[in-house]
C-alpha cells in the first residue's frame, strides 16, 4: 500500500475513534437506572436493570425475550434471521451498548 493510502485508512480509524468517544460521552449523560425497550419509535416498556426479570416482546418478525440479571441485561430466545441482538451478549450501565434487533424493530437502550 502507498503512503497516501495508509493515511486514508488511518483517517477512517480516526473517524471511528471520534464516533466512539462521542457515543461514550453521550452515554455518561444517560439515566443509568432506567432501561427502555423501544418498538419502532414507541417506548413499550421501561424497566429497572437492578431488578431481575424476564420480559417478552412481540416484534415485527417474531418474539424475543429480554433477560435482566444483577444489573445486566441481554436479549435471548429471539425469533430473527441473523441473531445479531443476542450475539451482543450481556450489557450493563457500565459496559453499555444499545441492543438492536433490526428485523423485529426493537431496541433496548438506556433512557
Amino acid at each position, binding site marked *: *500500500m*502507498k503512503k497516501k*493510502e495508509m493515511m*486514508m*485508512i488511518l483517517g*477512517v*480509524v480516526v*473517524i*471511528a*475513534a471520534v*464516533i*466512539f468517544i462521542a*457515543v461514550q460521552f453521550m452515554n455518561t449523560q444517560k439515566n443509568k437506572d432506567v432501561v427502555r425497550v423501544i418498538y419502532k*419509535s414507541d417506548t413499550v416498556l421501561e424497566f429497572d436493570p437492578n431488578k431481575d426479570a424476564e420480559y417478552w416482546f412481540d416484534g415485527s418478525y417474531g418474539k424475543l425475550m429480554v433477560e435482566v440479571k444483577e444489573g445486566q441485561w441481554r436479549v435471548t430466545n429471539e425469533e430473527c*434471521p*441473523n*441473531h*445479531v441482538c443476542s*450475539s*451482543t*451478549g450481556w450489557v450493563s450501565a457500565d459496559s453499555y*451498548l*444499545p441492543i*438492536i434487533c*433490526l*428485523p423485529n*424493530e426493537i*431496541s433496548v*437502550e438506556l433512557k
Partner: protein
Amino acid sequence: MKTNSTKRFVYITLLSAMAITINILESTLIPPLPFGIRFGLANIIALITIEILGVKEMIIVNIMRVVIGNLLRGLIFGTTFWIAFGGVALSSIVLILCKKMNSSLLFTSTLSSIGHTVGQVFVVMFIYQQASMIAIVPYLLIAAIPTGILTGIVAKEALKRVKV
C-alpha cells in the same frame, strides 16, 4: 481485457454465479459475529471482476449478486435486500473511484469494504430510523479494515493464478 462478446458474457455469468454462491454460503455457514460483522467474501469476486474485465462488468456482477442472491433466499425487495443493495451500491462506487485513481488492490479492497459498511448503515438508519445504531458504527468501521485486507489478499492471490 479485449475479448469477443461471447467470452465476456461467459465470464460475467461465471463470476456472477461464483459471487452468488459465496454470498449464500457465507450467510448460511458462517455464524453471525457480534454487531452483524461479516467477512464480505463475495467482494473477492467483485475485485477480480474489475481487474480482469472492467468497471461495467463489475457493476453487472454486483447487481446480479444482490438481486439473484436475495431472490434465491426469498428475501427480494424486503428490507434485507435494500440494506444489501445500499452496501453494494456504495462499495461499487468506491471500487470505480479506486480504479480511476489506480490504487493498489489491498487499498481498493479495504476501502470498498468500508464503503459497504457505510452504505448499509445509511440504509438501516433511513429505513428503521434507529439513531442508536451510531453506537455500533465504530466497531463496524474498525472491523471493515481487517476483513477488507483479507478479501484483498485472497483476490490478489487468485488474480496471480487466473489466466484470461
